[in-house]
């Protein structure tokens, strides 16, 4: 099994973090993983993205032209990456900020109003956890427990955020599973 995913959004949306969480979780579960960020000169406010591969075998290319999954958190990312998703692949769209869809028929497109769902939990900041949950709920690429552990680590210094983020993951997972087409 090899799964590759591109996470994309604005800088500041926590895109890099959720990519890393998938990689960490995969590693924890004994898989081969890689995480590769976009990097560029300091042009603030641009699109940030990272590519994650989780596999049972050694990973060749850490990035593909046509990723099998794509998680987009803002509209420019949708515009850039939606057309690239592999036929039959998965596209997770943050519908809170993206009023449109990819209009592709040949992929599984999952619309999740991440910011709204996160706001319901108390803060839009957790939108990234919602989308991560949705992605994992759909792909089952890693286990929820693995992610929980990482949330605990990540917020070890601000423990009050732990329950909220775990909750956000769960809300996302439900969406991911529920809307499976």
């Amino acid at each position, binding site marked *: 099994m090899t799964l590759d995913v591109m996470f994309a959004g604005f800088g500041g949306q926590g895109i890099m973090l959720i990519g890393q969480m998938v990689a960490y979780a995969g590693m924890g579960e004994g898989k081969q993983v890689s995480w590769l960020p976009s990097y560029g*000169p*300091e*042009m*603030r*406010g641009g699109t940030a993205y990272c590519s994650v591969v989780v596999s049972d075998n050694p990973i060749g290319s850490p990035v593909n032209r046509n990723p099998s999954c794509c998680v987009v958190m803002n509209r420019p990312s949708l515009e850039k990456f939606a057309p690239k998703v592999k036929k039959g692949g998965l596209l997770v769209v943050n519908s809170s900020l993206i009023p449109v869809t990819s209009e592709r028929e040949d992929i599984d497109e999952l619309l999740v109003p991440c910011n709204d769902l996160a706001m319901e939990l108390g803060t839009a900041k957790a939108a990234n956890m919602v989308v991560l949950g949705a992605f994992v709920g759909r792909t089952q690429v890693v286990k929820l427990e693995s992610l929980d552990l990482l949330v605990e680590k990540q917020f070890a210094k601000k423990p009050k955020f732990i329950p909220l983020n775990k909750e956000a993951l769960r809300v996302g997972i439900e969406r991911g599973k529920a809307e499976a087409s």
Partner: protein
Amino acid sequence: MTAATIFGTPESLTDRVTHYCPGCTHGIIHRLVAESLDELGLRETTVGIAPVGCAVLAYHYFACDFQEAPHGRAPALATGAKRARPDLTVFTYQGDGDLASIGTAELIHAANRGEKFTIIFVNNAIYGMTGGQMAPTTMPGQVTSTSPAGRDVDQVGYPLRVAELIATLRTPSYVERVSVHTPHHIINAKRAVRQAFEYQKAGRCFSLVEVLSTCPTNWGLTPLESLKWVEETMLPYYPLGLKKSPDDEV
């Protein structure tokens, strides 16, 4: 009576929106240079030189010919260009990492030879472009990505005061330090930048204007907090004012 524009975009700037972060005063300094070129009628004879640093793309914003220099070497390119074509107006636009660290030798020798070009030196106490490393001008105690516990002067010494250093050279030159953190300071900075180009236009001397500038992004402050930081932290260490004039006794 028709409306008159009493403040607009100088001709020496293009329309392009800069890539600078919100509130970064690089943009103000660009405009001061452009206004000076406009006012002195120099735009069409000007060659700007920007080395690496956040202003590496300055060529997109200035409506004049441009050269892009290796990190720190702009004064050498400017020397070559100005010696080749003394009729051109040549200026370099350099950051503190660029000018005060890797480019120290080129700076000091261009100044000491009295090369007749102008340096606009943007001192923001940090390496902006590469993401906030310590510069020779970083303040004591200032946290950067390569001084996470704050600049330790016992280990790496005190910040370099470039304007004062250059002013000690005997070769005549014009050296002034200004700031752009308040409108009042901007107005004064404009005068100094213009003065530098006037000296160049007259073929008189080397000129360097050190401009205290902000880097909200890498300082981890808002734009407004950054202005305050310039006032409270930088100004006491980097006193503003004229450091050397070509009219000084040699």
